[in-house]
């Protein structure tokens, strides 16, 4: 075997510097405070990048994409908790793209070592490396990072704002600040007089907010409670504005039709389309066309009517060819070997089993197709876009129309679903480019669903080969190879123009980093060199490896003659107590006995991802008229649960997203194009086939874990394992509908 790279901190830092063209940085730049992007108008005060006060009330900036995960509500609660803002007074905004809102967690996640093994020292090291994100203006929502990222930053912002308001009130009253308290958006004097924060907006402008200690958890009134979501009334009354809802005077409506082979156009003929009702312009986008019309539907009709001859794809043109390329990469030099415990070649005695797994290509299919609105006026560009990467999108839009980033105003709207798709730059830059052809006219661009599926950045297909040895009822050896094209490399090349050095850890996450005490445990990552556009799909590598590894663990349990739940529990207990805790909890919740009636099957799935161990038990029933999922029990250990209702919703949401993919999700290719195009051939779970859920949130994890993604990885193996329990058939390939008669 050839040389295998093992990541080192040094190579990582060099890699980061390379991304921005060799920026010099040190402790000074990292610790220097980022400038406050908020500009206070007359009678307003902005005490830090997160708080704006004026006569109308208190506005909190929650600089992460609200794509359904409830991030605005909990980020607002972090500030409001310390600042004593009355919940009903809060207005929450995404805020502008800015360095001050950088993601302080992302880069630290790339440090070597499985997260479950983190010590406080190692955790601190991740935090320090994470701060390099500030130098990269890395403002992005993803990786289930928001709560870890802002848990302290936004509480500090709230606490210092509160103290500044007290100082302003003390100045006005001529009293000692120590005599003042705060409550419900007011400073309160010893005699009970209330001074509203809004009345102090002018006075607090010149006060430097002091830094103070954070309150103890025991005094929390918002955090740890299920708060009414700040976006709930708008989303229940049709008044919430998404990227495709922006209304501007004189607005025109656009759509695009771009190469489904992800190449260019040989030629196009718009002679018929350009004379269709309402069509105002047909624009050559290089790799496709855009239509501007008086109505979105008229634009969609005309786009379909343009005759286009596409260039062929640069990757194997069909699903089988792509699969063969992935299989071939299993025999190439490994990219990573980040887990290599013991010696898998030492000839361990016991029962040996082997298995090969395959998972298909997947699309994100957010409910809102890609969309953005833009207005170009020659020396300025304004963009409204529901997006997960504001700083990068601002810069990309500027470049797309030949402006400087300072000339671009990007408004991040609510997102009609994200799941990783809206971290991409394409839809925002397209709207900007279309708008630039018609200066002064606002353009609202909406993709068709067909475009959304054919122009997605896919979750790649993958193959794994595992060899396991069991002895005395437990696992003695697990040797695995995972092959797929690299999401991280594909996306880095597209968005940053380069691939950071070092092994691709995302490729093996959900397998190499699992908290199992298997004495001989090796996971090798093999990358397939094909350039189908790839993107981050809810839980990324763990969405692949969670299914493949945990299904094999289930096979090993059966080979060992062990109870599948107990088998996992024994392996986890010696390695990571919170992981053992969720496995035990889900057993308790579900009343797991290992036995089920004839027409019922139960399976367990476990995965540790994004800092959170999650175990799920799924119960399936053969109704005689197809198999349905009756119930799903979920136990997750988030360390600290900041909002139980939102965390519970994210766990069930993650599981439903996973079940949808596991049951029926599959993108296939023919002639270099995705064959699926709408919900009739790329569907998901619906009301009638969603199970009941029961969720238990634990708080023993020493570090805070993420919530948005960790519910997804264990759902897929839990379902497959339940189907095995019911039928005796082991599906080693997704989607499961190929093997079982599931009720869709």
């Amino acid at each position, binding site marked *: 075997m050839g040389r295998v790279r093992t990541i080192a901190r040094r190579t990582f830092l060099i890699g980061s510097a390379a991304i921005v063209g060799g920026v010099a940085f040190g402790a000074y730049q990292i610790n220097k405070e980022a400038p406050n992007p908020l500009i206070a108008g007359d009678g307003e005060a902005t005490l830090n990048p997160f708080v704006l006060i004026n006569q109308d009330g208190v506005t909190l900036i929650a600089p992460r994409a609200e794509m*359904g*995960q*409830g991030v605005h509500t909990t980020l607002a609660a972090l500030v409001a908790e310390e600042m004593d803002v009355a919940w009903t007074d809060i207005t929450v905004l995404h805020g502008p793209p800015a360095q001050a809102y950088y993601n302080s967690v992302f880069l630290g996640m790339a440090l070597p070592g499985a997260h479950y093994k983190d010590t406080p020292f190692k955790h601190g090291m991740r935090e320090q490396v994470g701060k390099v994100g500030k130098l990269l203006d890395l403002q992005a929502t993803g990786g289930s990072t928001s709560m870890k990222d802002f848990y302290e930053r936004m509480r500090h912002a709230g606490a210092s704002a509160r103290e500044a308001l007290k100082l302003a009130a003390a100045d006005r009253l001529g009293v000692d600040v120590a005599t003042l308290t705060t409550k419900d958006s007011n400073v309160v004097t010893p005699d009970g007089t209330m001074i509203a924060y809004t009345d102090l907006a002018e006075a607090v402008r010149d006060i430097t907010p002091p830094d103070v200690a954070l309150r103890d958890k025991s005094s929390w009134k918002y955090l740890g409670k*299920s708060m*009414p*979501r700040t*976006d*709930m*009334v*708008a*989303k*229940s*009354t*049709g*008044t*919430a*504005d*998404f990227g*495709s809802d922006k*209304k501007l005077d004189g607005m025109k*409506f656009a759509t695009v039709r771009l190469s489904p082979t992800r190449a260019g156009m040989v030629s196009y003929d718009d002679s018929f389309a350009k004379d269709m009702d*309402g069509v105002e312009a047909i624009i050559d986008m290089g790799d496709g066309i855009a239509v501007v019309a*008086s*109505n*979105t*539907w008229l634009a*969609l009709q005309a786009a379909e009517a343009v005759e286009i001859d596409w260039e062929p794809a640069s990757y194997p043109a069909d699903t089988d060819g792509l699969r063969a390329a992935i299989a071939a990469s299993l025999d190439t030099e490994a990219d990573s070997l980040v887990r290599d415990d013991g010696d898998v070649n030492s000839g361990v005695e016991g029962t040996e089993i082997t298995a090969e797994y395959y998972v298909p290509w997947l699309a994100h*299919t*957010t*409910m*809102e*197709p890609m969309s953005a609105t833009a207005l170009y006026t020659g020396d300025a560009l304004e963009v409204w876009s529901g997006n997960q990467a504001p700083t990068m999108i601002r810069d990309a839009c500027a470049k797309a129309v030949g402006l400087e980033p300072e000339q671009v105003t990007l408004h991040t709207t*609510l*997102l*009609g*679903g*994200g*799941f990783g798709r809206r971290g991409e730059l394409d839809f925002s830059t397209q709207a900007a480019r279309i708008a630039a052809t018609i200066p002064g006219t606002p353009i*609202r661009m*909406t993709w*068709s*669903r067909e475009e959304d599926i054919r122009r997605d950045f896919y979750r790649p297909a993958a193959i794994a080969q595992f060899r396991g040895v069991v002895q005395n009822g437990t696992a003695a050896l697990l040797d695995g190879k995972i092959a797929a094209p690299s999401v991280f490399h594909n996306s880095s090349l597209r968005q940053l123009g380069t691939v950071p050095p070092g092994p691709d850890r995302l490729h093996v996450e959900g397998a190499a980093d699992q908290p199992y005490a298997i004495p001989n445990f090796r996971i090798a990552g093999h990358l397939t060199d094909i350039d189908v556009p790839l993107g981050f799909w809810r839980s990324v590598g763990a969405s692949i490896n969670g299914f493949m590894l945990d299904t094999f663990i289930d096979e090993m349990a059966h080979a060992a003659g062990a109870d599948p739940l107990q088998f996992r529990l024994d392996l986890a207990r010696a390695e990571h107590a919170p992981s053992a805790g969720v496995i035990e909890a889900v057993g308790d919740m579900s009343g797991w006995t290992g036995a089920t009636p004839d027409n019922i099957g139960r399976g367990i799935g476990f995965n540790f991802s994004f800092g959170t161990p999650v175990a799920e038990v799924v119960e399936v029933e053969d109704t005689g008229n197809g198999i349905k999922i009756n119930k799903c029990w979920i136990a997750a250990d988030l360390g600290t649960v900041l909002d139980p209702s939102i965390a519970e*919703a994210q766990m*069930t*949401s993650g599981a*439903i*997203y996973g079940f*949808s993919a596991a049951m029926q999700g599959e993108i296939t290719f023919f002639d270099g194009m995705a064959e699926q195009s*709408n*919900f*009739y051939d790329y*569907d*998901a*779970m*619906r*009301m*009638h086939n*969603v199970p*009941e*859920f029961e969720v238990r949130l634990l708080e023993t994890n020493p570090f805070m874990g993420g919530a948005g993604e960790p519910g997804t990885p264990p759902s897929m193996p839990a379902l497959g394992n339940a189907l095995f329990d019911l039928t005796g058939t082991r599906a080693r390939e997704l989607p499961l509908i190929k093997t079982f008669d599931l009720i869709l």
Partner: protein
Amino acid sequence: MATQITINGTAHNVDLPDDVPLLWVLRDEVGLTGTKFGCGVAACGACTVHIDGEAVRSCQVALADVWGDVTTIEGLGTPDNMATIQQAWVDHQVAQCGYCQSGQIMNAAALLAETPQPTDQDIDDAMQGNLCRCGTYPRIRAAIKDAAQRLAEEA
């Protein structure tokens, strides 16, 4: 030639070709963007509105074929004066991304008008045309049952 339609109690003269779907009349011409576009082929339910009280997929109804009074999510209730079903949605904290919820609520409102005390099977049958990629279904079910109860008490 302009077509006259009544939306949320107000008459509108719409100057668009006859075959433009009601969805795009609402969103781009009238400016009622609470009704959402999800698929364009009646496969997701995001565009659900009422015509004479009946839930329809507005992406499939041509402007010239609108046969009665149109009610959209904006006409059902407002943030300051929500309909009972909208209040149930808020109380059960149903929405996540929220994009499909206008359609979910309009479909559920029509279900409750037709079947005031729906069984789980009734809910399954009526709501399975409405897709939610965030997976808010368990809370939608709870909110529908709660709204049914409240409407019965209000009656």
